[in-house]
């Protein structure tokens, strides 16, 4: 199977600031990958490199091509939504439909029209007259009507209310995604995309610090809500993280037998956000350790 995105030692520095510190990455076709990281972790830089919007050092192949030198060819097979504010504000809805239909050989106008018919967006409106949610819906209608192999979403739901966010991911899964397509998404609203993803990547300080498919995520990680009487026993099993909620301890375990843990309290699959906190705390501690 060919990789949709393959990076080896991907590096990028802005002056003295290192944004990407040697990323190794392999995304297979037909996956929905979440790239999760704190602000300034290098998410957008990584996406820009993949999109051919920024030069980089190291090796990077997207659909078998070099995105920096072959960007023109790649744009036929790669679509992206950078964030909500990139549609030109002066353009009319009908104009942007004409334009994308005119320049993109894989654009299906009927599909975009059908999607827009379910919204309140008027054809004669200018983008600047639309609400933030409507602009996202419009951009999504355009992107979802383009038959591409790779879709990249950088904070696609930033600043949107919860209803629109839910709708966004529902249409992404139901109307768009199939096994020949690959989606790479970054967001801060991690819990909302947990059920959508097939793989999750954590990025911090320009490095991939965690890389796991959701299947193995669910089998590897277990969270136990332990009563006070079991806390000592639970701690003996080396949890990777522990937090307190309403006076009870919630302990996160990596690769510990579920049966054994269920004796200590309520067992469940952790949220990506909880694992994120655990992993980030861990890698931050490591970084401090190496700094000293």
């Amino acid at each position, binding site marked *: 199977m060919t990789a949709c995105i393959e990076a080896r030692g991907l590096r990028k520095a802005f002056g003295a600031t290192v944004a990407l510190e040697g990323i190794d990455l392999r995304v297979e076709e037909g996956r929905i990958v979440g790239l999760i990281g704190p602000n300034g972790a290098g998410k957008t830089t990584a996406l820009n490199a993949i999109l051919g919007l920024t030069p980089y050092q190291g090796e990077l192949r997207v659909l078998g091509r070099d995105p920096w030198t072959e960007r023109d060819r790649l744009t036929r097979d790669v679509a992206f939504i950078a964030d909500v504010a990139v549609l030109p*504000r002066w353009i009319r809805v009908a104009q942007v439909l004409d334009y994308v239909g*005119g320049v993109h050989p894989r654009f299906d106008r009927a599909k975009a029209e059908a999607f827009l018919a379910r919204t309140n967006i008027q054809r004669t409106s200018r983008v600047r007259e639309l609400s933030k949610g409507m602009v996202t819906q419009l951009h999504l209608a355009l992107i979802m009507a383009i038959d591409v192999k790779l879709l990249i979403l950088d904070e696609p739901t930033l600043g949107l209310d919860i209803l629109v966010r839910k709708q966004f991911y529902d249409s992404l899964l139901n109307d768009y995604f199939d096994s020949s397509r690959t989606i790479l998404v970054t967001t801060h609203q991690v819990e909302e995309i947990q059920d959508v993803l097939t793989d999750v990547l954590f990025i911090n300080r320009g490095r991939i610090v965690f890389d796991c498919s959701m299947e193995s995520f669910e089998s590897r990680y277990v969270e136990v809500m332990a009563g006070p009487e079991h806390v000592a026993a639970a701690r003996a099993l080396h949890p990777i993280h522990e937090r307190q909620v309403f006076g009870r301890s919630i302990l996160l375990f990596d690769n510990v037998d579920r049966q054994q843990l269920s004796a200590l309290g309520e067992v469940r699959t952790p949220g990506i956000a909880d694992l994120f906190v655990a992993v980030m705390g861990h890698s931050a501690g490591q970084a401090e350790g190496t700094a000293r």
Partner: protein
Amino acid sequence: MSSDLSMQTPLGGQPLPFTPTTEARPMYWSLRRELWENRSLYLAPVIVAAVVLFATAISTIGLPSRMRAMARKPPAQRTSIVKAYDIAPAPIMLTTFIVAIFYCIDALNGERRDRSILFWKSMPVSDRTTVLAKVLIPLVVLPLIAFVLSLITQVALLLLSTAILLANGMSPVPLWTQMQFFQGVIVMVYGLTVHALWFAPIYGWLLLVSAWARRAPILWALLPLLAISAVERITFNTWLFMNMLQYRVTGAMFEAFAFTPKGSSGDVTRLSQLTPVRFLSASGLWAGLLLTVLFLIAAVRLRHKREPI
């Protein structure tokens, strides 16, 4: 459009596989995009044309009496009544040059400022096509707009004057014989073409600065030129650079037309005053076009590299 083709080949850096459908469609839609975004490209000249038409129309009310007065004059002085038709295109063309300057200085800067460049770059339109579309606006589209509007204005004025003369029971024939309508069309096409070619490096420079500057591109476009001039004045006590800039602004008039007496930018009344051979053999023209190509190559490279501001 031999000038466009000659520009296209060196810009790519590598030979173009020329496939009309895949190359022409993005170009066509890029041009439409520019006209959608910058409605002043045609609105400003249209408004000026309307004002010119209105002002000249008012003056045609006095036409019958002027025609009568002229009939009493010797034939040598009879050109005055068609003056209004000859000067009508001038403000329209001047407007398109001003619009072209403002368009170019914002063309590659505005899309980075409002971050819409991320949207444009997500579409399969190359940087080369985008920059070429943007330079075709001042080189081809605006001269076309100026030509069509001037023609419409002149025809409208001619019909209006004819109607007024007929309504006053006078013959419009003297007006029509003096008009030299087709000669005027030729002079206009020639004038617009030579100026587009002569000003090409100005447009190229403005596009380059527009792609390069983060803010205040108009200052970046002008200040280095003034600085070079000032340094030259202080160091060598000469004005060579400033004279060169001045030649770039006014040179087309002197290279492409022969005025009598020499040096006065008077009227062009005879086709023999057009000097295309002298214009085409002017080294300033070819140096300018070469510079344009270099500026555009740099602008394409910059658009490829630059991120939103």
